[in-house]
């Protein structure tokens, strides 16, 4: 983990209330897909923890949804510098994903799946992507996933695009075996996956947090292997350790 001052390269609306923020700066603190960053926004006491969508040497991409005053303020920034703590949390373990993993993202949980997918493709794995949204206007990154050359299935709750229903409904249409699954999204989605899939999974959780680096104990949860901090020991937990 590291404090870095990033320059805003662009910050554009890509779906209903969803923005893609491109930043330039030192990304060497980021070590795995599924990690997050904690962004200081002027006028707010706490930083905003947001998952990493994608990164390379010198550039960082995050996708966030406007859900409150902090993200609202962030969405209005067109340029300038941002004080960001990078490389927070553990992220997904690529080796544990296996050769043919299933990647599942729900809403604001879709972005880390992109970075993960990219790394898996680079490692010559063959991931399948299922991403779920409420309705067509919420959908983003379908084309970006497809550009990576992976099968990408969309599910929308109202059926306005793709499979009608939840990600679990879309998964049922896939008659195939997966080596494991990785997921990020609302907790009911994570639980539904854990209930229906028998393969091993890596699940990314969310919790209100203060520091984001393990000091305040604000985001603790109980697991089968003792208490863990979502920010530091998570956000990615193994399916067999989660207590629902």
């Amino acid at each position, binding site marked *: 983990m590291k404090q870095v001052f990033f320059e805003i390269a662009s910050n554009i609306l890509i779906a209903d209330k969803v923005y893609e923020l491109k930043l330039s700066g030192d990304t060497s603190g980021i070590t795995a897909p599924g990690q997050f960053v904690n962004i200081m926004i002027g006028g707010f006491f706490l930083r905003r923890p947001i998952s990493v969508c994608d990164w390379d040497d010198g550039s960082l991409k995050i996708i966030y949804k406007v859900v409150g005053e902090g993200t609202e303020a962030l969405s209005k920034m067109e340029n300038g510098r941002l004080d960001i703590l990078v490389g927070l949390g553990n992220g997904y373990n690529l080796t544990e994903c296996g050769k043919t993993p299933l990647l599942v993202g729900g809403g604001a949980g879709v972005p880390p799946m992109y970075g993960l997918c990219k790394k898996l493709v680079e490692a010559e794995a063959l991931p399948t992507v299922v991403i779920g949204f409420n309705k067509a206007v919420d959908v983003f990154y379908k084309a970006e996933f497809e550009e990576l050359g992976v099968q990408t299935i969309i599910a929308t709750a109202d059926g306005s695009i793709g499979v009608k229903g939840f990600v679990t409904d879309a998964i049922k249409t896939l008659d195939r075996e997966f080596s494991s699954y990785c997921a990020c999204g609302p907790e009911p989605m994570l639980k539904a996956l854990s209930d229906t899939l028998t393969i091993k999974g890596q699940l990314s959780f969310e919790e209100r947090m203060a520091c984001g680096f*393990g000091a305040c104990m604000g985001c603790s949860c109980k697991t089968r292997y003792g208490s863990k901090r979502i920010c530091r020991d998570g956000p990615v937990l193994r399916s067999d350790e989660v207590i629902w």
Partner: protein
Amino acid sequence: MKDLSVILSGLKLDNPVIPASGTFGYGAEFKNFYDINILGSFSFKGTTQEPRFGNPTPRIAECESGMINSIGLQNPGIEAVVSEILPKMATYFKKPVIANIGGFSVAEFVCCAEMLDSSPQVGIIEVNISCPNLHKGGRNFASDPLAAAEVTAAVKKVTDKPVYIKLSPNVTSITEIAKACEDAGADGISMINTLVGMRIDIKTRKPIIANKMGGFSGRAIFPVALRMVYEVAGTVNIPIIGIGGIATARDVIEMMMAGATAVQVGAENLRNPYVCKDIIEELPKLMEELKIEKLSDIIGAAL
């Protein structure tokens, strides 16, 4: 060369800047940001006799210039701290640490203090009688002068380390509690702990914090903390560690002028992990500007 050193009950600190308990863990996370040996000391995470998971989540709510926490004293228990954490800490923190202990009975405070007494790493035992998050048994040592005195006397009896009592601001008269602690043998006072507060999610119409209420801290509480330190400094003759909303070198100077011998920085560490380093670097410059040669000269200057 400016002299930033201060003395707390015979313990000489290189500077008065101390991260506050609960915002710095046992130092392990912050050592990745900077060399924490530049600190005066730090007060480690409030430790109880038994391990505690703490309160249900959400435990955090943001406020204007501050935050509310309801951690509920999550900690691995005093045995694990003495046998595992302190030896590990010795590898990265070379100065005496302030050991913050919590408890739900006099016996629990005594047990924790006894176990820490023989540790050469512990410079001061800080007794948290004021954590407002817990509602167990209903007894609050911090709001009753007799109970505060009882804990103080009992802890003093089992340790030769300086004993500092950490006071709650959620009382009618903090000077009365401070005096009771001094009379019972306290070597110093740490003040203030968080103010009880709450936030409501206007969409769900429910409190944001699972436990409904929590402790409010951050820059917003600085004037309240300053006022209370000023009052207590005029009442007791033992050193005070000033705590509450400190975020800048200016705040440190102001708090010391109100009567604090040293200060603790709390919530600000959680938004700016470098704040204590920043303050330590800024202090000599501000002292130069204010023509202060020796920082300890300003203690109580406003009294």
